């Protein structure tokens, strides 16, 4: 009965304390936590540990007291047995010659594949040096970079989802200019590769005349101007071409130049040469 009472008392005391206290057999759980590191961080050495000396004693410093331990004798035998001498010769590390002929002479042998010759381990993690077991698979178990942009290793892998066609017709990626257009379609201002602008007699530009305005061009006349006259419009040039024959009369003066008839005219104070020949006959 007393044992039972004692046992129950001890059990109650254990329950009141922490389980750690039960494990450490201590009724002060705080100190028990502190001893095993507890909730305050890693375990620390007990405060009662002897501090290390700050500086090592000098060699020539006399010892204060002779050591109580006996000094080891110089002739003391070695208790650890020496290693046994090797009776077998060391195995040859060079590779055995292959029985098959080397059909791929440029390929290094397997044992030395990607392995440094001086016995260093292979550079597994070096970039751009895939090892033998690798087949394009990057390290760390990552999948191959087939779906990465700009690396369409497999044509079907880079296809956009939902069955959309590849982005060939997107702007800035004119892989096929006429894709999606009817046959024969050409972009605006398209010219064949051997196209050249048509011949045009120079000068290509002539500014407006201060009296007559914008000049006009006719192949057989060159630059000419127009001016409204009574019941018609006068077409005229300012300068006659070369090799003209004059036709003089009492009423007017005509010039025949390359089959074109001009009439010398005083127009707004300026001598011009009105084109008498019908332009339709010159076409």
């Amino acid at each position: 009965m007393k044992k039972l009472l004692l046992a129950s008392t001890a059990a109650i005391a254990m329950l009141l304390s922490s389980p750690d206290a039960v494990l450490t057999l201590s009724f002060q759980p705080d100190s028990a936590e502190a001893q095993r590191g507890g909730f305050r961080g890693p375990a620390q050495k007990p405060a009662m540990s002897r501090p290390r000396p700050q500086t090592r004693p000098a060699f020539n410093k006399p010892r204060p007291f002779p050591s109580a331990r006996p000094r080891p004798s110089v002739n003391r035998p070695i208790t650890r047995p020496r290693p046994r001498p090797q009776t077998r010769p060391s195995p040859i590390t060079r590779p055995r010659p292959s029985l098959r002929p080397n059909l791929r002479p440029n390929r290094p042998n397997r044992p030395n594949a990607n392995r440094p010759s001086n016995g260093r381990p292979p550079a597994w993690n070096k970039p751009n040096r895939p090892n033998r077991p690798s087949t394009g698979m990057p390290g760390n178990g990552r999948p191959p970079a087939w779906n990465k942009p700009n690396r369409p290793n497999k044509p079907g892998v880079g296809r956009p989802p939902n069955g959309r066609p590849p982005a060939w017709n997107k702007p800035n990626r004119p892989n096929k200019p006429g894709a999606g257009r009817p046959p024969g379609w050409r972009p605006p201002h398209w010219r064949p590769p051997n196209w050249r602008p048509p011949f045009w007699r120079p000068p290509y530009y002539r500014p407006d005349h201060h009296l007559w305005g914008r000049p006009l061009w006719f192949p057989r006349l060159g630059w000419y101007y127009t001016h409204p006259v009574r019941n018609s419009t006068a077409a005229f040039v300012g300068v006659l071409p070369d090799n003209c024959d004059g036709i003089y009369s009492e009423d007017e003066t005509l010039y025949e130049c390359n089959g074109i008839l001009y009439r010398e005219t005083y127009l707004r104070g300026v001598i011009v040469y009105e084109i008498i020949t019908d332009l339709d006959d010159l076409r």
Partner: protein
Amino acid sequence: MKRLAFAISAMTIGLLPSVTFAQNSDSQEAASAIDSQAVDIAKASTKFLSSLPALQTGWFVTYDEVVAGREKKTYIWSGSSALERGKGYRSTSERGDTTREYVYDGKSFTVASLDRGYYASLSMTGPFDDLVTNLQDNHGITLPVWEVFSAQNGDAFLNDVVEATYHGVTLVGGTPAHHLSFRSSSEDRQMWIATDPERPVPLMVVGTDPYQQGWPQYHAFFHNWNTAPKFQPDMFSFDTGDTLRRVTLPKLRAEAGGGEIEAGN
């Protein structure tokens, strides 16, 4: 309601004097903008010139052409002109590298370039003012300094003047002259008219086009005025001879008519 009617009546009555005052001020401003002294001097000069049976003067004209809206190209046109009313007109001018003769004998008008060897002729009758109008409207030809010779249209500009200012007397080539300035709806003009009351001839005229970008101007300087000339009998006749070739002088459409200064070559 009575209050509202009273207020409107009061406002109307109160506004009436102000409206009347505004009208009076406008007319006063218009009247004050025209200096009668300047207008009188200019009209006296015009009347004097139109009353002369014959006159002759030398002239030197520069006129601008605005290029590309800002650059001015100035041309020079110089010569002398003579008129005997009822008899004929002759003007000899130089422009560029050519000469030009304008001869009118009361029956036909001839324009010729002796150095270029051509002439153009028109049959025409009437006084000098009809000649000016016909050439401008139908052929685009403007006679040089025609205003000082015109008996009818010489004061046309002065009738449209909206502002006139008298600036005083200044010397023009050693001759004292009245400096006048005018503004009309079509042109701004300055005139220098001799102060001699017996011979109020114009000495210089400057005109400005207020509607064209660049505001081109013309300057006309008059010299060697002869208000009582004696001309030779063949002064207003033109002999084409055998060396000159005749060119055509076409009629222009009304919208392409004259009124502009010839560019000439």
